[in-house]
């Protein structure tokens, strides 16, 4: 069965998972995405407020209907305690960007001003290079990346999205609260 994610109706969706913090869980989830043909745009995993669970944030570019299928399939995995697509209008999302610019010292002041505009920080300075750290949503980091390109990006890494819903809502099901 072909998935309709090749169609132009695909868009970016943020799927948030609460999973048991056990060996092999990442493998199970990544394996499910790969064998059912769902491409992962980004995946982050890290500890939560409870040591026995981890939180995963997976960004996929698929149609809404396919995302519903993804959620139902992921829910079937035994170590997945909860999974939900987060509503795009109701979430706080962040990515972290680290970028190394190779540039002579005379440009540093200019870059410092640019960084400030994007609420970014310069976290390492050497005579012919500096490292900028920025966080924010994907759009903001894309814009910063574009601006920095002209100075000569030596190396860049982005963390992938993490996200939480606004307000009191949490992902943990009632039996875990």
């Amino acid at each position: 069965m072909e998935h309709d994610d090749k169609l132009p109706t695909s868009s970016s969706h943020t799927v948030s998972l609460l999973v048991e913090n056990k060996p092999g869980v990442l493998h199970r989830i990544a394996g499910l995405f790969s064998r059912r043909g769902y491409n992962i745009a980004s995946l982050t995993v890290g500890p939560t407020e409870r040591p026995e669970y981890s939180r995963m944030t997976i960004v996929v570019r698929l149609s809404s209907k396919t995302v519903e299928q993804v959620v139902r399939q992921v829910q079937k995995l035994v170590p997945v305690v909860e999974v939900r697509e987060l509503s795009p209008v109701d979430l706080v999302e962040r990515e972290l960007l680290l970028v190394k610019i190779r540039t002579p010292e005379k440009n540093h002041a200019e870059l410092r001003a640019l960084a400030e505009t994007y609420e970014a920080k310069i976290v390492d300075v050497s005579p012919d290079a500096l490292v900028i750290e920025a966080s924010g949503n994907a759009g903001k980091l894309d814009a910063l990346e574009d601006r920095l390109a002209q100075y000569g990006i030596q190396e860049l890494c982005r963390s992938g999205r993490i996200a939480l819903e606004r307000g009191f809502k949490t992902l943990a099901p009632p039996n875990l609260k």
Partner: protein
Amino acid sequence: MAKEKTTGAKAVVKALEAEGVEWVFGVPGGAILPIYDALFDSRTVKHVLVRHEQTGAHAAEGFAHATGKVGVCFGTSGPGATNLVTGIADAYMDSVPMVAITGNVSSSLIGSDAFQEADITGITMPITKHNWLVTDVKDLPRILKEAFYIARTGRPGPVLVDIPKDIQNAEFEFEYPDSVNIPGYHPPVREEPRLKDAAALIRASSRPVIYLGGGVRTSGAYDEVAQFVELVGAPVVTTVHGKGALPESHPQCLGMFGMHGAKFTNYTVQDADLIIALGARFDDRVTGKLSTFAPEAKIVHLDVDPAEISKLVTATVPLVGDLKLLLPQLTEQTRKAFAASGRADIAPWWIKVSAWREKHPLHHAPQGDQFIEPQHVIERIWEKTQGKALVTTGVGKHQMFAAQYWKTIWPRQFITSGGLGTMGFCLPAAIGVQLGKPDALVIGIDGDGSFQMTLQDLATAVDLKLNIKIFILNNLFLGMVHQWQDLFYEKRLSETPLSDLPDLVKLAEAYSCLGLRARKPSELEDVLDRALAHKGGPVIVDIRTRPDAHVYPMVPAGAPLNDMIDGE
């Protein structure tokens, strides 16, 4: 249960005893020796020594299919474990409850490419409901309890527990838990089932069809299905695993639909304005080309697995839950809807369906003097046994002939590899079925290609003195592939003719069991009678059938369901 000092290996046997396991199918080996040693002392768990682990897994499936209980199989590390893979994948596709237990090399050697080491939890991740590599013996009782629980509940399926040898030897305080607590399993169903919406669709439908799948067997909802069917009065169609969910002699039952369904059955499905799917998953072998499937039909889809809802065909009204619990509620709601506001007249629909039934029944070439017609063999075995046998099949043309012509009377009577389509399923499944149902007449319908994939386990059937009767519809071809080559590859028979080997009668004799052969139509009746009368062990019957007898009707892969090749 009180705590007691024991080893990991003995804990496995105690857990099997606590779960009421009667039969385990397997082959011992280095990394599972401690468990086999512990098994030596068990009074209730009996072991069947198979000759290949794949057969063990299929025999466990056969047992599970026939009884509804969890099938259990063992394998050692490395090749023992990888040989189980086909059986596990088969169980996964057909939702068969199975616990596979494998030994592995000692914990300190894992990851070192040790002798007979394989990452079987990694390998079986996509084909199990869940699996575990045990890293601490203290986890073992909990894991085994969860393994049996997960295998048999919800949508059943296989699980695998991989136990390194040092864990099997480790001593600890054993206590088998009474219950499980798995936070990520059995997620609560958030929505109230939309029973009223479903009932409204049923009430308004003038061309309804009820579509029964393997989920009916899983939930055991036969009475519930019968009551629903009687109330709604619609034509009933089934998948291959839905056979027997309603007796095929029931006047509303139109039999199996799909790629090799009868024409009248497929026409009925295609023309429906409402399809009520109960425990089924709209597999490509039943829908034909998806975009043209039953174009005017609204869909009510009831299944225990939410991930099956709208996976392939979008449900107008999804109903997630166990058929046995939910279907009576739907029946009640429908009864109310009928009583409150009447229902659409379905009499014209039945006139149409009956006309198709009359005009386009299943049919095959009449039995002449020269060749034995394979469909005729199935019909004759059915008549001679009055259909009162449990049937297992291999995979291929013989399987589809059996599915078409074996009119199933009871649930769990027709046992086959549906989803994965595993050749070689027939004989091992028959072994498991006979052990699960010792008093039943167990018949295998196999093909010559399929039989040769697992024939070594004739030895197992002889060891156990099982009265299984394997009828091999022998056309000296890999028949189903031959059929596709005839129809779609300009009769270029690339690698499908099989040599006339082995001599199946001599093979039977070599395994100390009865071998019979019918080459001509005139020999058939006597051979069938002798085979069915035989006691004291298995019988292998070599029946030479017309090689170009193909399975019709046929919906070519990717064609609409009502676009069938008739073969005339």
